[in-house]
């Protein structure tokens, strides 16, 4: 199962299927300090950021059955959980979420597609790193919650279209399988 698969996806699947605490510890070691930094950039103090980072990682464990490697990287999925915690705690409002789409009836979705999405997510990170600093900082500010919605510029110069098409394909397959 692990051959050719993204290491974080492998750990997520071990958490999901086997409640594997060692795999969880690996995810925790890599992502919790990033979530904490993300929350501190967004205005939380160290104590609050520590607590929210722990809650984010606990949510990852509890909602592992909703993670779908055909539609998101592990970093992306954790980002959405951390973002929602940030809004709950720092803005004291809710962030309404779209209706959940579970994995679908097939226990193991198409691995080649999942791998392709993980690679494209990695390439997106590289493209972000390669942007001129001014442009990159603007995107980071938006996602750290430093910009209002009218200040956000959507011209990113990044290959978002390839990821969108990949996710669309996964959704079409899921819808077909659910029929």
């Amino acid at each position, binding site marked *: 199962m692990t051959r050719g698969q993204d290491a974080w996806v492998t750990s997520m699947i071990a958490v999901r299927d086997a409640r594997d605490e060692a795999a969880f510890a690996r995810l925790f070691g890599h992502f*919790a300090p990033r979530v904490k*930094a993300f929350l501190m950039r967004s205005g939380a103090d160290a104590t609050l*950021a520590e607590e929210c980072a722990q809650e984010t990682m606990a949510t990852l464990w509890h909602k592992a059955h909703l993670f779908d490697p055909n539609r*998101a990287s592990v970093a992306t999925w954790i980002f*959405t959980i951390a973002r929602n915690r940030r809004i709950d705690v720092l803005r004291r409002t809710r962030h*309404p979420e*779209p209706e959940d789409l579970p994995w679908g009836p097939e226990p193991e979705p198409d691995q080649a597609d999942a791998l392709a999405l993980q690679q494209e997510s990695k390439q997106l990170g590289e493209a972000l790193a390669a942007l001129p600093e001014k442009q990159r900082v603007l995107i980071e500010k938006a*996602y750290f919650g430093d910009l209002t*919605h009218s200040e956000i510029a*959507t011209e990113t110069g990044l290959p978002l279209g390839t990821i969108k098409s990949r996710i669309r394909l996964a959704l079409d397959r899921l819808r077909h399988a659910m029929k």
Partner: protein
Amino acid sequence: MTMHDINHHLTDKLLMAYSAGALPEAFSLAVATHVSMCDECRARLGAYESLGGAVLERADTVAMAPDSLDVTMARIRNGAPVVNTPAPHKRGVLPAPLCDYVGGDLADVRWRSIGMGVKQAILPTSRDATARLLFIPAGAAVPDHGHRGTELTLVLQGAFVDETDRYGPGDIEIADEDLHHMPVADIGADCICLAATDAPLRFRGMIPRLAQPFLRI
């Protein structure tokens, strides 16, 4: 509610702002509800959320407390039992995010009449913008109005027509300050929409303007 035939979608700006967590709650509710009905926008949103993932992956790190993994494992053991069953497939008329705010389905909405058969129900969101459900009887009109800010109108059932186009189930109209319009429900069926605004509407007629403070429309 059908997945096909959606012609009016979210803008990149709304999708990116939603993914960054920068929208007022009422707008986020409209975005989440449209995405629940539209796989195209779900995929576009997924791309913007990937960008958030890339930002997180590249972010600096701040060391966690030495006992934090143990504390988190204790949180997990004391937390809610894990429900591993897939979320139930659509139960009723309203998409899941709206059911949350209504506290049930369409039958549970507490409508208030605002005249001429039009009814509304304001949903509980933060005050920086207002979300409400609108019920427009077949063939009836919402009074001619303009906007100071932005208004998002998402059709849940039926259809409406205004100066710009026809909007059916799943379609979302994004109206800004320049648009003065009078949505009219299709003659065939009552129209139910979710409308989100970040400023009060401006009516042209005298009577709706007088009534406005009472209606919070």
